[in-house]
């Protein structure tokens, strides 16, 4: 079953084509890496899939809903975590969880259980009443991820979720993504770290608004005769008109 399906999806701003006829599909429970240099069009594509911006042409469905006409339904069925830190610094840990539980329509009685569940899962029981701004960055990101899937969405969009986080915490962060994927939550991840690309089930690489490669990390490495995803990425990125990375 495909949870995300994009066909010839395109977005132009004036003369500039940010996303250029991309076609791909993501399966349920898959961890899908969405790679590309800065300015390759990743964020624009992701915004269209989240229902934040309307495509110029082409089609896409997310969780079975059309991005053009059913963005309200899409929003109920997805989670989102951005590269900027998305929790409120001067709210306590449990208050942040409660806020998002409320926003996603979880019922009053259920909210308390979810708070305890998340705290236990992360081993944060002692930090329940800590203000979020006092947590280390890696902890905040883990908390933000758990909060973004508090409503058990079908898909979670992760936009550079591990930026600036140390390798050990990044490893723990990916454990959380795997746990979510095991429960059937599809993860759609953009990242700068090529070692993380290796953790994905499948990877797409965007160059100048187009998807130039899409396969499992293993196949991609074989195809480009490379040892690491990093090499694959650089081979593709070098072709870009506006190479930045």
């Amino acid at each position, binding site marked *: 079953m495909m949870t995300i399906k994009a066909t010839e999806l395109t977005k132009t701003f004036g003369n500039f084509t940010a996303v250029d006829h991309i076609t791909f599909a993501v399966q349920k429970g898959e961890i899908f890496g969405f790679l590309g240099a800065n300015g390759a069009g990743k964020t624009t594509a992701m915004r269209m899939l*989240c*229902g*934040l*911006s*309307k495509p110029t042409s082409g089609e896409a469905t997310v969780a079975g809903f059309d991005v053009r006409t059913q963005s*309200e339904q899409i*929003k*109920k069925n*997805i989670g*989102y*975590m*951005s*590269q*900027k*830190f*998305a*929790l*409120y*610094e*001067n*709210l306590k840990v449990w*208050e942040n969880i*409660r*806020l*998002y*539980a*409320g*926003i*996603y*329509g979880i*019922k*009053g*009685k259920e909210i308390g259980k979810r708070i305890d569940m998340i705290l236990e899962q992360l081993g944060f029981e002692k930090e329940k009443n800590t*203000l979020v701004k006092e947590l280390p960055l890696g902890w905040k990101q883990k908390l933000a991820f758990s909060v*973004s899937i508090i409503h058990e969405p079908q898909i979670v*969009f992760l936009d550079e979720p591990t930026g600036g986080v140390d390798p050990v915490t990044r490893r723990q962060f990916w454990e959380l993504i795997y746990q979510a994927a095991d429960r059937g939550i599809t993860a759609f991840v953009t990242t700068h770290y090529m070692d993380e690309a290796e953790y994905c089930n499948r990877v797409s690489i965007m160059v100048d608004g187009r998807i130039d490669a899409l396969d499992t990390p293993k196949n991609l490495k074989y195809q480009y005769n490379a040892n690491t995803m990093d090499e694959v990425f650089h081979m593709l990125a070098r072709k870009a008109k506006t190479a930045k990375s």
Partner: protein
Amino acid sequence: MKFFTCWQGKRRRQNRKFAAFSSFVHKEFLHIFRDMWTTLILLLLPVLMTVLFGFGITTEIKNGKVAVLDPSKDVATQGIVDKLATSEYFTIAYRVNTEQEIDDLFKQSKIGMAIVFNEKFYENMLHTGQAQILLLADATDPNTASMLNTYAGMLIASYQMELSKNLGTTPLQITPELRLLYNPTMKGSYSTAPGVLGLVLILICAMMTSVAIVKEKQMGTMEVLLVSPLRPITIILAKTIPYFVLSLVNLTSILLLSYFLLEVPFVGSFLLLIAVCLLYIFVALAFGILISTLVNSQLVAMLISGMVLMLPVIMLSGLLFPVNNMPLVLQWFSCVVPARWFITAIKSVMIKGAGFDAIIKEFLILLGMAVVLLGVSIKKFKNRLE
């Protein structure tokens, strides 16, 4: 906190949409209260300003519009009226036939002074050598009243001298009798209390709202909220409600201070007063939302609210400098400053006891401003999403 607990209990029975909304509003309150300094400033600043403006600031005001009630219409009354009309301080704006008309004009703030002559003014003066003129001045602006009085007195005295010279014979005596309306003891606080209301409400509503919304944009949390099932209008509404509540607290504290400490009278309808204040708060909130859709940093939001909103309110609304004293261009500009209309309306209602019919123009202008501002910002907000 009791407020929240009871709110939470109630929440379970409400539908899910409202639950999402209320948890958002709750969070917004937490933001405010957790920042002790902000809370203190928000609650104490109005008090401080009321006291400072009430006691410390004197203003120089001039309103030269005059109404004339002249039943005798003879050489002398015409001479005096001409004398006033040709001076730069007065404009003869209305000629009326009854005292009731004068009263109405004052309540609608259309005139600053009225001149009432007796019947057979000139005849009496020739017979008795004496005559009285009644000068009525609107003392809600005490400085205006006393200045107008002085100028009018001087002009009348000079006319009296000319007349005596021409007639040559007996010296004539014209005595102007002054009556200060609404504020017989000439208290400055009468004009500053409404001004402070106009200033503080704009400050709290527009500045705090715009900064709070822009903060979410800057922090990246707005992005997350937009991806959530919350509708944009819900987000905006939830962000403004806490500031709306705060401004109600401020409104109460300023009104209490004005009444008990500054002894400003409340003559008019209390309900009407509150209605005008709510409308003004609405305008200010809409202004804040508009600013937040235009800028992306808290600092810029603060500067814009400061420069574009606060300064005109202080300088152009009639709080410090009288609108009628300004160069014409600035007078036109002052027309787009909401506080100008608010302050006029509040003075009419609070101090003069005017009814709704007297402030209908101000009310409609404010209402129009609110509608336009909200319309533009909702459009802007939607565009930004695209």
